[in-house]
């Protein structure tokens, strides 16, 4: 499967490659390499797919990442880590957020992003050698099926009593509105 290429209306000079992986067996090793600063891994943002409820949810975080870059208000060193922590509603705890929204020892499913400039090189081919797992399709259905609700409710401070409500298919929009608002207002 080839990566999905996204470009956003206000940021024509920057594109994002998205790939989704499941049944991964070497997450601990990937995390180790990231912590050691291995350049081969540094090209990508590794995002815990269980914390992403829909494509729009991820796009909201990408939008924050790119506006933060343009405005010079990034809170981390590069776009990859910025994209990961942009999913949160509290950008003060960078390490915590990387743990929650980034790759961890238990993740079996991850979303891999790569930001690259127009005419720049991308490294998506190398992912096959870095990740031991299967590629999945980047769809709302896939994301929706593997939400870690317990953790989601905790990190977005959602109303616990509304868990069942949010899980219902017809209330997706409302769940998204809450998450989106939290992401857009993160840090202010």
């Amino acid at each position: 499967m080839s990566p999905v290429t996204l470009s956003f209306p206000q940021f024509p000079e920057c594109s994002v490659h998205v790939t989704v992986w499941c049944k991964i067996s070497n997450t601990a090793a990937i995390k180790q390499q990231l912590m050691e600063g291995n350049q081969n891994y540094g090209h990508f943002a590794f995002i815990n797919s269980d914390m992403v409820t829909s494509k729009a949810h991820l796009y909201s975080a990408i939008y924050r990442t790119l506006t933060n870059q343009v405005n010079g208000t990034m809170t981390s060193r590069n776009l990859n880590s910025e994209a990961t922590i942009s999913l949160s509603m509290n950008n003060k705890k960078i390490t915590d957020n990387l743990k929650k929204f980034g790759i961890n020892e238990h993740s079996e499913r991850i979303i891999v992003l790569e930001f690259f400039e127009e005419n720049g090189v991308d490294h998506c081919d190398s992912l096959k050698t870095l990740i031991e797992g299967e590629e999945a399709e980047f769809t709302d259905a896939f994301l929706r099926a593997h939400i870690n609700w317990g953790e989601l409710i905790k990190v977005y401070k959602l109303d616990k009593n509304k868990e069942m409500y949010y899980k219902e298919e017809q209330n997706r929009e409302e769940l998204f509105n809450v998450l989106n608002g939290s992401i857009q207002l993160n840090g202010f």
Partner: protein
Amino acid sequence: MASHIIAQAQAYLPNIPLTMVSQGAEALVFTTTTHPCLPVSEQTDTTYIIKYRPSKPYRHPKLDAQITKHRTISEAKIMHKLGQLGIRVPRLVAVDAPKGIIWMHFVGKLLANGEMSSLKNWLWYLERVSAPGSATDAGTARILTQVGREIGRLHMHDIVHGDLTTSNILLEQPHTDMNDTDWEPVLIDYGLGSYSGLPEDKAVDLYVLERALLSTHPVFSEKYNAWVLEGYALGHAEVGGKLGGKKCTETLRRLDEVRMRGRKRSLLG
């Protein structure tokens, strides 16, 4: 002329087609069909609102940036909060606070005479164009009661609007099966909104709307107001039950005082 301000907005929003719909002292409002967060490949033709607070040349640049950012965030936060509380507001799409830009969902539609469906335009339409008597019939009563009810619910959560005029109340038809005379009110523009539990601030909200109704719809304003206040009590009872009734009485008592002296509490400034 606002041309240089529009040019600045366009420079901040590259590749976003902008159509200006209103200009106030504080902000410009545009419509667009581009969603800021969605990739180019997934855009639809939905309409969105962009509210842009331009920088003011007479303020010190540092202070100006601070004020713009602060006001933008405060407005977005209140909208987000109200959305979560289940009060009808335009839903937030995106915020670019340092640039003073808020994106939100479009609310309202066009009336039969081509005007935007604000409460003001709609009442004018009934008074001037529609069949005689329709401005004071049960349908109108229902909608003005709904307006009061929304304000009551807002105040029960200790949020005051700050600028309740008839053009800041839009009417929409959220369900496709609603007929032409059936509307739900949405309060918009939280630029002057704030958190306050004081009966004084809430009473001023009501007073401002009362004055707005009086000046734009002088013939029926008394009736309109009575309906709004009726709904206001309903909104309180709905959210707060017995306690709500108490709060409502407090605010209405205060409203009598405000009516006698005007919106400003002190006569200085």
